[in-house]
């Protein structure tokens, strides 16, 4: 029996592509060229499965025009805003995604940004690399201590809890958190719950944003809330850029009220607020919070697990629709 046909829209990590080629007649995209809905419709001719990425819009029109052979769409992402689930249901196409497996890599990025921002690593790196290091002095590039301080986690979901675990277990930090609801004791561990922003912000030597960025949290970190942080606080964002009012944060970084910030996500990315680029006291990463081989492999394998299950008539893990 010939292998089923699987369309993979973009280039994926080698281990994932190797498994796809082993188990399927896989149509790869070795050049990693961006694809449109029309491209997908054409390339999926005769295919049973599609493994797509967040950059592709699988809107209702595209899904309706997919070849009748397509049984499953698996997206290489947690988010699925780019797929019209209603249209997929109408066509009886199963849709899967890749939750959970990014938590550790993203939390790790949060701790990296916390340490690098507090310890002025960006400034140090640029100075050394530019050959401008003229010698050690006792007062050069003095940062702020991380271990033993207070960390506030805004949004205590999977990633927030992972950040809390690393900061508490590894760095002896006292954890405070703000969340819609108080967590049960086994998830809360030794963290302190705050039901109000006011009491929460006041204790944040470090503030890590780990909440979704739409709806009520849009621009949550604004001038008014920033003013309630202790002077010299450090702000970390690995969640969504829309959580922050950039102009307010940039003003606080200029005044020194916020000593430093570490950011992986931005409103309007990749066209970020240019005000950040002139600041020395920010550490900036290009939204690569989950960009580890281990996590990207795990995402690819989970996406393939979904396809394997659907084509074998089993219930897939992580089904959305």
């Amino acid at each position, binding site marked *: 029996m010939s292998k089923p046909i699987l369309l993979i829209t*973009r*280039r*994926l*990590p*080698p281990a994932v592509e190797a498994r796809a080629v082993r188990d399927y007649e896989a149509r790869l995209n070795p050049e*990693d060229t*961006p694809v449109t809905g029309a491209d997908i419709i054409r390339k999926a001719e005769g295919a049973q499965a599609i493994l797509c*990425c967040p*950059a592709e819009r699988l809107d209702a029109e595209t899904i309706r025009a997919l070849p009748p052979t397509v049984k499953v769409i698996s997206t290489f992402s947690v988010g699925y805003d780019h797929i019209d689930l209603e249209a997929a249901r109408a066509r009886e196409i199963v849709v899967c995604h890749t939750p959970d497996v990014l938590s*550790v*890599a993203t939390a*790790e990025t949060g*701790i*990296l940004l916390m*340490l*690098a921002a507090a*310890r002025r*690593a*960006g400034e*140090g*790196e*640029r*100075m*050394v*690399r*530019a050959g401008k*290091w*003229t*010698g*050690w*002095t*006792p*007062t*050069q*590039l*003095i*940062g*702020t*201590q*991380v*271990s*033993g301080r207070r960390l506030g986690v805004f949004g205590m979901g999977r990633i927030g809890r992972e950040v809390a675990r*690393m900061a*508490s277990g*590894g*760095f*002896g930090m006292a954890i405070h958190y703000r969340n819609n609801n108080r967590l049960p004791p086994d998830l809360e561990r030794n963290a302190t719950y705050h039901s109000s922003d006011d009491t929460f912000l006041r204790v944040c030597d470090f503030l890590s944003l780990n909440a979704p960025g739409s709806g009520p949290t849009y621009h949550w970190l604004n001038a008014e809330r920033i003013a309630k942080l202790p002077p010299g606080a450090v702000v970390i964002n690995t969640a969504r850029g829309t959580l922050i009012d950039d102009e307010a944060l940039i003003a606080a970084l200029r005044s020194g009220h916020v000593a430093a910030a570490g950011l992986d996500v931005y409103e309007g*990315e*990749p*066209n970020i607020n240019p005000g950040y680029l002139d600041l020395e006291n920010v*550490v*900036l*990463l*290009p939204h690569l919070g989950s*960009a*580890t*081989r*281990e*996590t*990207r492999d795990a995402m690819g394998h989970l996406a393939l697990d979904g396809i394997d299950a659907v084509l074998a008539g089993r219930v897939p893990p992580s089904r959305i629709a």
Partner: protein
Amino acid sequence: MQHRLVVASLMPPAVIDRARSEFDALVAQGPDDITGEEVLQAVLAHQAEALLITSTVKLNKALIDKIPDRVRIAATSSVGFDHIDVPAARAHDLIVTNTPEVLTNATADLAFMLILNACRRAHEYDAIMRQGWRRRFGQGDMLGIEVFGKTLGILGMGRIGRAVAQRARGFGMKVVYSNRTQLPPELEQGAQYFSSLHEMLPACQILTLHAPASAHTQAIINKETISLLPKGAVIVNTSRGALINEDALIEALQSGHLFAAGLDVFHNEPNYDLRFSTLPNVFLTPHMGSATVETRNAMGFRALDNIAAVLAGRPAMDPLWT
């Protein structure tokens, strides 16, 4: 009457304030630390009984020979004392103290920061941002190594090595270590001891150095020992540049045998080997292991505590010899 003190190195404001309130202190003014000759002039002019320095003041034999016997203690606000000629000081009965312990957490934090920055390609990411970003990455592009769950090798399991091990446990890492002697279980905390560095290296996905510079550790990380690390390993150094043969390290970073390195110390500081500055897979910091306000204050205070003790006729808390 207050004891007379010369503060020869630039110190944080809180430390200078305390020196001025507790001593008759002559404080060196910036922008640079004063030279050996200026130190001597200040000590003579001020009729000093104590001297507070850091690693920027070279207390060599020539200088120590000229320092009057009235000076009973030279306190360095640092852990390292490579800048002090210990035999010469002993010959003159000049008590010398350093500041161990108080910089353990700051240095361990920086070591772990370098581990994360090296594994997660933070220099390359920062460069992308400073150039304005404006490009997309495929799902397989620019991937780093996850730190969580890896095996961390620690060379030198003193205070700082053990503090790094504690941070690693928060990241679900397996910790192995190489040390002159095996630690008791309460300090080992589950870390696996190797009596031979050579036998430990093949297990180390990440290797961090926390041993002092000595004849034994001189270039202990060299072509041969690097080749024993698994392909794709990461090396971090916050201890002393002399532990690494930099030619061998650069070669392994270029060949890809090593995935990345994070370096806070170099063979020649500040005139470090500029070949490092052309490598994308290194994260470089300018010897800032103890550079936090909290720690630099604590170090300066500890040095003042040692000075106060000796001048009051009590034993020093952190003497280099007893």
